[in-house]
């Protein structure tokens, strides 16, 4: 469903991502992890068409995002980590706007909008301006908008940012439900518990390169960890092995 082929992005001389190759199957929940500045957001931005790669290709649902962007974008629902929305629209109006962008039939989207607002517990806020929404509510609204066109792929950058525990659980349940119906979810996150709990496979990226890829068990094997070891220790072991040793640290007084 998603293919990243030799994806590279250079900023002047610095390689933000360096030859990433990934293939994600339909219905898979795929975790994309890495330390700060590893290249996660850069990869995601290229995947959704917000950034041009220096080289390499992104193929979504059989369509190259560079050559056939409209068809590729039709298959994707994107949820960014910081959702900047049109603050002067109400929640419902925003969802109608998004439905329009995806050319959904006017007669069918009203019921879908009510359904999504209900699902994300936003019904009573539907007629309020977005500028009055909290960060978590905005995040849930973006998630609703990403689902309005029943996408085949969901690409999400930090899904749990700004969500309260109830909201986080809600989102986890929704993601699991839609993935069981065949939607592919590509998720970048720092919340390792969520990745561990939800993802079928995980890729760990560092300094722009994929340093590990596989199921939880495969990752554990890679660092000779026991079955009961959590992703946190596996992640730290993998990233520390790969990282260059720091030259010196000054003692903090």
């Amino acid at each position, binding site marked *: 469903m998603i293919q990243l082929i030799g994806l590279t992005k250079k900023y002047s001389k610095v390689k933000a991502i360096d030859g990433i190759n990934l293939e994600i199957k339909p219905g898979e929940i795929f975790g994309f992890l890495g330390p700060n500045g590893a290249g996660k957001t850069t990869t995601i931005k290229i995947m959704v068409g917000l950034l041009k790669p220096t080289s390499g290709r992104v193929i979504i649902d059989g369509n190259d995002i560079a050559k056939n962007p409209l068809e590729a974008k*039709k298959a994707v629902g994107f949820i960014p980590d910081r959702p900047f*929305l*049109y603050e*002067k629209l109400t929640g419902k*109006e925003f969802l109608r706007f998004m439905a*329009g962008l995806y050319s959904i039939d006017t007669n069918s989207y009203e019921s879908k909008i009510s359904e999504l607002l209900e699902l994300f517990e936003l019904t009573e806020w539907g007629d309020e301006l977005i*500028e009055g929404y909290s960060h978590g509510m905005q995040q849930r609204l973006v998630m609703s908008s990403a689902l309005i066109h029943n996408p085949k792929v969901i690409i999400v950058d930090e899904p749990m940012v700004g969500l309260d525990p109830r909201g986080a659980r809600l989102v986890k349940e929704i993601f699991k439900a839609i993935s069981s119906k065949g939607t592919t979810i590509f998720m970048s996150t720092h919340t390792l518990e969520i990745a561990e709990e939800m993802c079928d496979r995980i890729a760990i990226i560092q300094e722009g390169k994929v340093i590990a890829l596989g199921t939880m068990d495969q990752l554990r094997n890679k660092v000779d960890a026991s079955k009961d070891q959590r992703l946190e220790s596996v992640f730290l072991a993998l990233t520390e092995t790969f990282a260059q040793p720091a030259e010196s640290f000054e003692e903090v007084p």
Partner: protein
Amino acid sequence: MGKVTLLLTPRLISLKNRINSRDRWEMAKAIMLLLLAVCFWIGIFIGVYRVLTYFQGIEVIGDMLTRRLLSMVFLTFFSILLFSNVITSLSTFYLSDDLNLIHSAPVPLGRIYLARFIETTVDSSWMVLLFGLPVFIAYGFVYSASFTYYLWLMVVIIPFLIIPAGLGITLTMVLVNVFPAKRTKDIFLLLSIVAVIILYLLFRFLRPEKLVDPEAFSAVAAYLTALKTPSSPFLPNHWATEAILPLLQNYEGSPVFFFLLLLSTGLALIVIGNYLSSHLYYDGWSKSQEAKKSTISKTMVIERLITFFTRYFSPQTRALMTKDIKTFFRDTTQWSQLFLLAALVVVYLYNFSVLPLDRSPIPTFYLQNLISFLNMGLAGFVLSAVAARFAFPAVSLEGPSFWIIGTSPITIRGFLWSKFFTNLLPLLVLAETIIILSNYLLKVSNFMMLLSSLTVFFMTFGIIGLAIGIGASYPRFKVENVAKMATSFGGAVYMICSMIFIGLIVILEAWPVYLIFISQITHRPLALSQWTAIWLSFFAVGVINILAIFLPMKIGAMKLSEMEEYP
């Protein structure tokens, strides 16, 4: 005082870093702005210098006039400063992003008040001070003032700046306790626009051109009486005038007394403000943090109008247009500018209604049509200026939300055309209102009425094409104030292109129309070659119009698509 200085350091360091940045483009822009400011500065100086020299030449009332002018200058500065301080303090005291950090730090409220007081005063006053300086220097030059005058001026001006700051901040603190901070800012922005409109209309309706009319000289006696009446002795502008005028006009006066009045009032306002802040500020700030549950009008009429006007467009264009229209009418800073536009149209039409065409030595028929022709160019200019404010920033207005467009299955071309059509109808209505009403007031021939209405109709398409296309070629998604977009580099490029476009259209039409008029006056039919040339001219107008619509739109779409990274 250490804490106050510390609180001011982030601003100072940011300023230093900006100056030190090696960005060439930024440097070039700064130099351009500086040059422009210097030109403006010199312009003010020369203007005031000439007015003052002229006043000095008038016997009896010369000195009275200069005194009056100085007092008026101070009063104008005082009013601007008061307004500016209210708006600035709403940001510095209540809406600024760094306030959360500052309030959570162990800093006494009094210190925060003082630091923000200094910040507000500097932010609101530097521009007035900068452009006020040439006025005061011109005074010094005209009266051959000594160095003491300039030194004393600097001493007097400081408390003069502190007073409106103290008053403005106190007023803000009281207002924010009654209304939410954001709404207060909206209200004040709206008020400032209304004030500008009233001043503009008043000035125009006073008909300053009548001053050169000898019949109006009967008012001189009343004028002299008005001059002798002193301005209110309780206003700081009077104190400032009386504090510096003795040094210019060499009379005794009590400059020190008036300076002390300014100083004591300024200091008293700081103390009173500080005291009030301990009671009012924290409550107001907490209030401004509360969720803004905004009420919006849900009039079905507007909804239906939007649905009606957008019904023939594709779902994507319809969605974008609906979003843009709703956003426009819900943003006070956007729709309030419509008042300015209305005032502009009223004054524009008023100018035509008072044109003394019958008193001109040129035949009226000829003059009416000539002016109607110039009117086309002028209407084009007005439309360009309006489009610079509304259509040109349309793409940049998406701001950080552009990711929605970037990730949606909509072509950049489609996106730009939606912006084109959103701006088309309102600008067409404006264009035709201006041209038809002004032609009606000019009582032009039916031919000219038809020609100019049609020309301006199609010209509007070209102007919007240029505005949207060039706006897309120079997008600034991070710009905070869209009103400033028109003065950016891209804005200048657009205005130049638009002027060339209008100029070409007017020139290409002027010549054939002249031929037609001459043939009508002389009752001689036009030759075939002349008809061919006329049709070629109109054909060229058509081609230029089409190019003005499609070429910039194409370039804009290309540039936007080629952007390395969307926000």
